[in-house]
């Protein structure tokens, strides 16, 4: 199975082309190809992860690669696959969510524009993400990374007829690209230090200490720039909430479960590089800690249900980053794993609600509990999972992160960073429970405030919700603390040590989550028109305006570039560059005209005409010899004979 893992990304990529070529002629107009392809990928992923369950992951890791094309002197670019526990977990996450999202989309996208294309793009996205995951070298990973970015752009802008949506797509693309530039430079810095793009080779060089500490720090910080952009960390988080302009299944697939996890995956994949540099790790931890609280605060006051979830995603990704920052790689990937399921569930549930209420704003919802029982039940499970209530999935992973952060505070190289992550994480856990309960109350409880006639979504949409609901309950059990062959051992790069549970911390985090839920429920039980948080006054206003980050970027970056730099470039273009081009053209025209008049008309044509005229004049004279008088011809003949006879008698 492991030898043929390359089929996992190839199948969805092939599905992309097949859907574009034949999708419209099929009975369902496209989705069946993508679903079949990703189903096979999913089955293979299950086969692969089965090898890593209950065993030390490192023993089953495989790397297969082949030369792709040569570059430089003697170096070769590789194409290959690296299968280890991390890859296997990512395979499961991507294929599961992609499969369920594609099934769900059959119902959700029914009758929408560019239906077939939508499924083609979903397949392309899935294939790109799997390419990024399977890559055994950084350049191949970069290819997947950029393909994922393109797909995100295409899918966010799916309804491009509306300007706001295409703007959101462009914003997402440019913002993540801002992170991709340092990412690319980071890859080359790492190459300069290790002379290889191969990830295993990089592990080896770092392990034996071949690379200088400064190079590793620079490379790690630059690579983290890419992760910041892709995973929506502060200060490049601005694109993720705007990306909610895309259809909701896209939000579930790309902006919750898979694409944004690429940043986390990158840091987890190159963890030895980061681990070799405490400075880089601390940066990761602090940015994560700041972002998680920052995003959770904004999420508290959003009225658009998808934006709440978007900021929640930013916040949860920051949890993973912070976990990586304190050295808890397994905990971070574990949270990535569980989060993918309940966040996809939340987005798909929100999609179901939006589908029914014809509005994104929670102000137009309320009281949907009775009308949409399946959506209600699954959304509740996801809310509890995200809040971190046992025994739901989110509890186990979030608790592990907090435990690891606390442990890093006690024993880690930089104590203060560990404690900062723990405190920020604890506050965020409380806020997370609060804003999720707020969203839950505003959407499902109270009286219906909108004008539509909501009803439960069709089976094809509720089915995936139920499956994801089940996963949100059980996905955490694989990582129960103290479990000998639990989640952590699948991923372990070396020897995995089994950590025992810290019951005090568990109690604290459960209390915080429960407190947040209770507070949210009490404050929003009577919600009707006015948001109770408005009592916070100016702080509420700051939160609603997302700390004015967008305005700041607009004023500090976008406007100066758009109004000054772009204008100046335009002026240079119009006056200098166009002048040069036009000048060259004018010179060419004048010299061409001159050549035509002088050389072509006079010399060349003169020669041709001269030959003609000469021939004609000669012929005009000679023609008189042809008199038609046979006797004259005979006379010439005899004259010639006489002359020849005379000449022969004289000279022969």
């Amino acid at each position, binding site marked *: 199975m492991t030898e043929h893992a390359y089929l996992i990304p190839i199948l969805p990529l092939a599905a992309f082309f097949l859907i574009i070529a034949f999708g419209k002629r099929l009975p369902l107009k496209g989705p069946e190809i993508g679903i079949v392809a990703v189903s096979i990928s999913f089955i293979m992923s299950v086969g692969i992860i089965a090898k890593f369950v209950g065993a030390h992951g490192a023993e089953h890791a495989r790397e297969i690669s082949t030369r792709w094309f040569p570059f430089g002197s003697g170096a070769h670019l590789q194409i290959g696959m690296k299968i280890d526990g991390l890859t296997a977990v990512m395979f499961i996450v991507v294929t599961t969510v992609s499969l369920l999202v594609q099934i769900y989309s059959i119902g959700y996208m029914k009758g929408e524009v560019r239906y077939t294309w939508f499924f083609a793009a979903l397949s392309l996205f899935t294939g790109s993400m799997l390419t990024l995951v399977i890559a055994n070298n950084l350049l191949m990973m970069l290819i997947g990374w950029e393909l994922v970015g393109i797909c995100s752009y295409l899918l966010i802008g799916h309804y491009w007829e509306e300007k706001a949506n295409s703007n959101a797509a462009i914003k997402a693309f440019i913002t993540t690209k801002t992170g991709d530039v340092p990412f690319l430079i980071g890859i080359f810095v790492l190459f300069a230090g290790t002379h290889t793009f191969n990830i295993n080779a990089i592990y080896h060089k770092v392990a034996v200490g071949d690379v200088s500490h400064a190079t590793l720090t620079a490379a790690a910080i630059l690579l983290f720039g890419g992760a910041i952009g892709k995973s929506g960390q502060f200060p490049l988080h601005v694109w993720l909430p705007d990306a909610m302009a895309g259809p909701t299944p896209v939000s579930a697939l790309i902006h919750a479960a898979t694409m944004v996890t690429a940043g986390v995956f990158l840091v987890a994949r190159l963890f030895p590089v980061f681990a070799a540099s405490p400075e880089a790790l601390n940066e990761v931890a602090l940015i994560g800690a700041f972002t998680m609280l920052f995003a959770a605060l904004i999420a508290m006051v959003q009225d658009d249900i998808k934006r709440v979830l978007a900021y929640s995603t930013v916040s949860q990704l920051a949890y993973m980053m912070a976990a990586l920052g304190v050295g808890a790689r397994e905990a971070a990937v574990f949270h990535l794993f569980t989060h993918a399921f309940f966040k996809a569930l939340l987005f798909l549930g929100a999609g179901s609600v939006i589908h029914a209420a014809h509005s994104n704003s929670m102000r137009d919802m309320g009281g949907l509990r009775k009308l949409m029982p399946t959506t209600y039940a699954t959304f509740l499970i996801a809310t509890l999972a995200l809040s971190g209530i046992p025994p739901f999935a989110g509890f186990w992973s979030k608790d592990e992160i907090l435990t690891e952060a606390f442990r890093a505070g006690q024993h880690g190289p930089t104590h203060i960073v560990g404690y900062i992550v723990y405190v920020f994480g604890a506050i965020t856990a409380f806020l997370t429970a609060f804003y999720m309960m707020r969203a839950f109350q505003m959407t499902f409880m109270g009286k219906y405030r909108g004008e539509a006639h909501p009803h439960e979504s069709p089976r094809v949409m509720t089915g995936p919700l139920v499956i994801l609901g089940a996963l949100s309950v059980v996905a955490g059990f694989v990582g129960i603390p103290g479990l000998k062959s639990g989640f952590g051992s699948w991923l372990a790069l070396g020897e995995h040590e089994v950590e025992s549970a810290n019951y005090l911390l568990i109690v604290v985090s459960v209390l915080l989550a429960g407190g947040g839920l209770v507070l949210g429920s009490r404050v929003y039980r009577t919600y009707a028109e006015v948001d109770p948080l408005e009592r916070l006054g100016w702080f509420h206003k700051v939160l609603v305006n997302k700390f004015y980050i967008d305005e700041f970027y607009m004023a500090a970056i976008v406007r100066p570039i758009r109004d000054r730099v772009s204008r100046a470039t335009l002026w240079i273009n119009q006056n200098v560059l166009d002048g040069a081009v036009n000048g060259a053209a004018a010179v060419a025209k004048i010299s061409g005209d001159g050549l035509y008049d002088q050389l072509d008309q006079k010399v060349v044509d003169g020669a041709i005409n001269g030959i003609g005229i000469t021939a004609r004049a000669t012929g005009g004279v000679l023609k008189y010899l042809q008199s*038609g008088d046979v*006797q004259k011809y005979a006379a010439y003949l005899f004259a010639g004979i006489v002359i020849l006879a005379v000449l022969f008698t004289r000279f022969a």
Partner: protein
Amino acid sequence: MNLAWPLTLGALLFSIGVYGVLARRNAVLVLMSIELMLNAVNVNLVAFSTWIRETIAIGQIFALFVITIAAAEVGIGLAIVLLIFRNRETINIDEIDLLKW
């Protein structure tokens, strides 16, 4: 036999023929002049044949060929002249200049 006599006769005949071909306007007379020239050649052939006493009489055989050709030529020539006369009502050679430029 003195060779000079027949050669002189041949030269005279040939010269008369040349004159007739170049100077006469009547196409029939031009054809007759051509016959004169051919016969001048025949005289020469027979005279030389006798003079060198050849045994197989090549010169005389050749003369017979020339006579045959001359007969054919006159036949075709008179036919052409006849057709020209039918078309143009004249056989004046000065007026028959169809191949003029």
